[in-house]
């Protein structure tokens, strides 16, 4: 199929960017969205132009690197997928597709569609870990009883890949789904109890410091999250924070 692309081009973090129109032809509907951009870039390189910079790594939906705001939605119109897992069959021949970087004050653009998501790393450093020594003296897994439900819910929270789609989607650029998932993952398990109070307080403080907005429960993040992280995790984080503050 043949497509018109409107893509955000920005030379570096300090220059002003703008939307630029491109045409791509003979795109297979079986291509992933990133492969379609690869085709565009090969054409640009052949013409001696600067290729469109974009983030990617695993290309199998698990690393969380590929970002892109496609036609007004994080990771495009499909549900439960990252951009690398979005396929061109979701579009029609002749479509115009708008492609922008994830937008948030806390995610500054580095170049074109690449944004700096290290704010997430700093939130993790503030408390997204346990300090139990797990090397060499691991206990038998069954010696600490954990209910099936708690284990499953913790596992669901742990599937967050830190992609930032929740922030990009949220009208407030709030990171509460991400932080809620990271807090929940430990709050549900006995291993996470030791630092539970400090963890939630420090991670939320870092989140605010990075300039993310505040959750107003629109629920957009849950819909756009490629891993189906539930809003329940935000409620759990609110509960943990209240528990830690009194």
């Amino acid at each position, binding site marked *: 199929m043949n497509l018109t692309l*409107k893509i*955000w081009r920005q030379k570096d973090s300090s220059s002003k960017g703008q*939307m630029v129109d491109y045409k791509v032809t003979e795109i297979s509907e079986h291509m992933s969205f990133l492969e379609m951009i690869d085709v565009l870039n090969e054409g640009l390189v052949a013409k001696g132009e600067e290729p469109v910079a974009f983030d990617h790594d695993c290309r199998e939906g698990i690393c969380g690197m590929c970002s892109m*705001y496609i*036609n*007004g*939605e994080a990771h495009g*119109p499909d549900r439960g997928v990252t951009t690398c897992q979005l396929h061109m069959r979701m579009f029609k021949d002749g479509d115009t597709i*708008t492609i*922008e970087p994830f*937008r*948030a*004050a*806390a995610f500054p*653009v580095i170049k074109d569609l690449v944004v700096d998501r290290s704010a997430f790393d700093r939130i993790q450093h503030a408390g997204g870990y346990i300090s139990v020594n797990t090397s060499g003296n691991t206990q038998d897994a069954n010696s600490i009883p954990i209910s099936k439900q708690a284990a499953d819910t913790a596992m669901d929270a742990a599937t967050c890949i830190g992609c930032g789609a929740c922030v990009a*989607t949220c*009208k*407030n*650029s*709030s990171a509460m789904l991400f932080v809620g998932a990271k807090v929940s993952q430990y709050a549900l398990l006995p291993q996470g109890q030791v630092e539970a109070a400090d963890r939630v307080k420090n991670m939320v403080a870092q989140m605010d410091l990075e*300039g*993310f*907005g*505040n*959750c*107003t*429960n*629109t*629920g*957009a993040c849950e*819909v*756009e999250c490629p891993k189906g992280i539930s*809003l*329940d995790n*935000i*409620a*759990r984080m*609110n*509960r943990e924070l*209240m528990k830690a503050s009194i």
Partner: protein
Amino acid sequence: MSVFSADLFNEVSHFMGTNPVVQFALQPVLIFGVVFHFVMGFILELQNTRARNVSYAKNNGGANSTWMSRNMIWSGIAILAFIILHFIDFWFPEINTKFIQGDWSGTMEGVEGFRYYEELVHKFMHPARVAAYVIAFVFLGLHLAHGFTSAFQSVGAASLRKKLEKVGLAYSIIIPLGFIFIALFHHLNH
């Protein structure tokens, strides 16, 4: 009450308007609550718009969230405009009569018995005012359609949020509709 009986409305209005618990405890708490809520609302909106310094060229909000949830600030501002109108209509005149002129009798020259019902009917004669009331209550309904369940989520009660979804929706339709009925009833009957 004003729909069913003018006398009952008068009695209750006089009680509410002269009872010290209502006047000096409940009323300040309510006013403080509303002021606190909209001041916090504006601060929240300011922080949240700052959190996205460059906006999207194309954003498809309707794909993942309700209109109500994305426009709380606008439904809130409509309610605030109504509250200001309501204060000009009723609250300032009451405070003036009671606290400045010291008249706590609840009566008025040319009106037999208490004056409250008379004043109410008089206010709802003007179609523009009735329209303003009706529009404001539609916005209140929109505000509550998101706000009711949102409040449970904010305090961490996610399971209650889901259970009360229908209750919240019913509440945010029935309460404003009741107020709309009152305004229209008095407009059409006098």
